[in-house]
């Protein structure tokens, strides 16, 4: 019985192909949006996780506060790292770096790259390993020597033809700097810094010669245990306030973020994006549902006579209701399946533009499918109900 009714529903939908396709279009777009939303959400989550992979939960970041409601100048310096390490009781390790952008050129090749001036512990804490050459020495640090180590990506940018970078002299912000080493590819980024595309220098040189006031300072502090992150944060805040000679009334001239809250913030923004996109998908599905309802009303009106005949030969209200309800559910479900296919196919295409990370999930298609069935039932019910309640004689009389 049900199979026969489904067959009849298909037949009547096929009889009006263009109308059926057009009314499915909304569902197709809605469901593919749902799929994309989940892929983007999942991707953003993964991107956040990848970005902070290098950070342990013990990590606390201290950043310079630039003109944010506080005094415009900050006293935060890379040297503060050493002070924190010496004075802090719950601070196991502290390194610092100053980061900024500078134009870097070699021969006729030139690019704007991120310059990271750091102390020597920074390389350890960031898991940077040499692929060629050597690290910067203690002496070079104290002498403000113009030496640099290139990240993997920076090397490729400056030496596109595969020349040996070791010993090469590049120009950074107009100053001649010798390359002494090259780091292996890291892939992820260290907080906001893109490690692979950076040039690493002694912080002294970077601060005084290259970046001046144009760099932002970031300290990377490791608490002695995960449980002491809060204690360490309090401690370092007090030490820094003292060092910077801030009065009671003055606010911090630096920002402190621990890894946990940084990941939290990034996840929150990824979630917010997901919520917004979900809202859009929901609205699309709602609109498509209204479209289906509209089409079903037209269909019922057109087939009023048929409904009258069906009633005259013994069709029950339930038979007529299920007939029309099935038509709308078939419309929305077929649309949903097409939407899932399009949505899934779009994921690798969008990903290939490298604008954002997308990851396909099982939840997306499942949710898209269930929503499309629901839309069909919900928006198909009222027209089908109306059809089933038509007066048989009035229906028979209509043309």
């Amino acid at each position: 019985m049900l199979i026969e009714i489904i067959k009849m529903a298909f037949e009547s939908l096929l009889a009006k192909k263009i109308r059926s396709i057009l009314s499915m279009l909304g569902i197709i777009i809605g469901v593919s949006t749902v799929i994309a939303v989940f892929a983007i959400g999942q991707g953003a989550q993964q991107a956040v996780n990848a970005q902070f992979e290098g950070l342990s939960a013990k990590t606390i970041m201290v950043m310079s506060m630039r003109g944010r409601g506080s005094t415009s100048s900050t006293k935060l310096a890379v040297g503060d790292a050493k002070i924190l390490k010496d004075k802090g009781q719950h601070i196991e390790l502290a390194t610092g770096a100053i980061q900024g952008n500078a134009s870097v050129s070699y021969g006729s090749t030139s690019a704007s790259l991120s310059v990271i001036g750091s102390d020597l512990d920074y390389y350890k804490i960031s898991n940077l390993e040499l692929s060629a050459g050597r690290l910067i020495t203690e002496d070079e640090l104290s002498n403000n020597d113009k030496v640099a180590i290139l990240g993997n990506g920076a090397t490729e940018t400056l030496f596109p033809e595969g020349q040996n970078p070791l010993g090469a002299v590049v120009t950074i912000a107009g100053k001649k700097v010798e390359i002494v080493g090259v780091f292996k590819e890291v892939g992820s980024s260290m907080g906001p810094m893109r490690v692979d595309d950076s040039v690493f220098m002694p912080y002294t040189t970077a601060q005084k010669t290259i970046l001046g006031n144009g760099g932002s300072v970031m300290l990377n502090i490791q608490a002695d245990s995960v449980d002491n992150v809060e204690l360490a944060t309090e401690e370092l805040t007090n030490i820094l306030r003292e060092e910077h000679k801030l009065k009671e009334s003055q606010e911090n001239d630096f920002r402190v973020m621990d890894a946990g809250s940084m990941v939290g913030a990034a996840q929150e923004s990824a979630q917010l994006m997901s919520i917004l996109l979900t809202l859009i998908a929901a609205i699309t599905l709602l609109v498509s549902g209204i479209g289906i309802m509209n089409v079903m009303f037209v269909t019922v009106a057109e087939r009023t006579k048929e409904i009258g005949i069906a009633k005259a030969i013994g069709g029950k209200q339930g038979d007529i209701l299920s007939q029309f309800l099935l038509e709308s559910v078939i419309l929305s479900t077929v649309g949903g399946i097409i939407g899932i296919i399009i949505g899934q196919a779009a994921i690798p295409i969008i990903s290939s533009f490298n604008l954002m990370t997308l990851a396909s999930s099982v939840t997306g298609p499942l949710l898209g499918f269930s929503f499309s069935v629901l839309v069909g039932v919900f928006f198909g019910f009222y027209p089908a109900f109306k059809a089933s309640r038509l007066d048989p004689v009035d229906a028979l009389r209509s043309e």
Partner: protein
Amino acid sequence: MENKIEIKLENVHKSYYLANKEEVPVLNGIDLEIKRGEFVAIMGESGGGKTTLLNIIGCLHPLSRGMYYLTGENIGNVRDDFTLAFIRNKKMGFIFQQFNLFTRLSALKNVALPALYAGKEKEERERKAKKLLEDIGLGDRLYHRPTELSGGQQQRVAICRALINDPDIILADEPTGALDSKSGLEVMDIFTGFKKQERTVIMVTHTAEVAKYADRIIYLRDGKVISDNYQLHSNY
């Protein structure tokens, strides 16, 4: 022939209401008894209430007032869709002037549809539909759609549809009205054959030519029976 009363109407009234709530009486107290196996023609002027009476007998309309006994049971007050649909499905077979076949379905599927509503299995309903179509001379038209059939053929498909659930009563509204005279005669031949099957036939017509096939002719005017006579050839 057994003279069991199949249909009995007592003082049946039916009114329609216009949009401004004005009452338009159509049937004004019909009293009628129709016995099992009778072939009754209902005649009368347009607007006399012929089709309304047929629709009331066919349970498509509720009555406004009066009693309707179907094989002894008063069903005049029944409003429940399930019961009414059951009566229309199992006890009655409708035949219309314009055939009213489903254009998207083949002849076979059209005939089998009431059996689908009756909950019969596909194999059973299609076997039965095929037998009916073959008996009526449409064995080679099973898979044709109504648009591929002549008017006479379509009406014969509609007759098969009316018969699939083996009803006791056949209700026909101007069954020959859209047919040429030859096809009309064929349909009347089939109708007179229903007598042997002990089916009661109630047919609305305005053509005396067609009505003369019936055992009994009832005239309606202004919603009342003005004459009700058995014909000479009838056995009553």
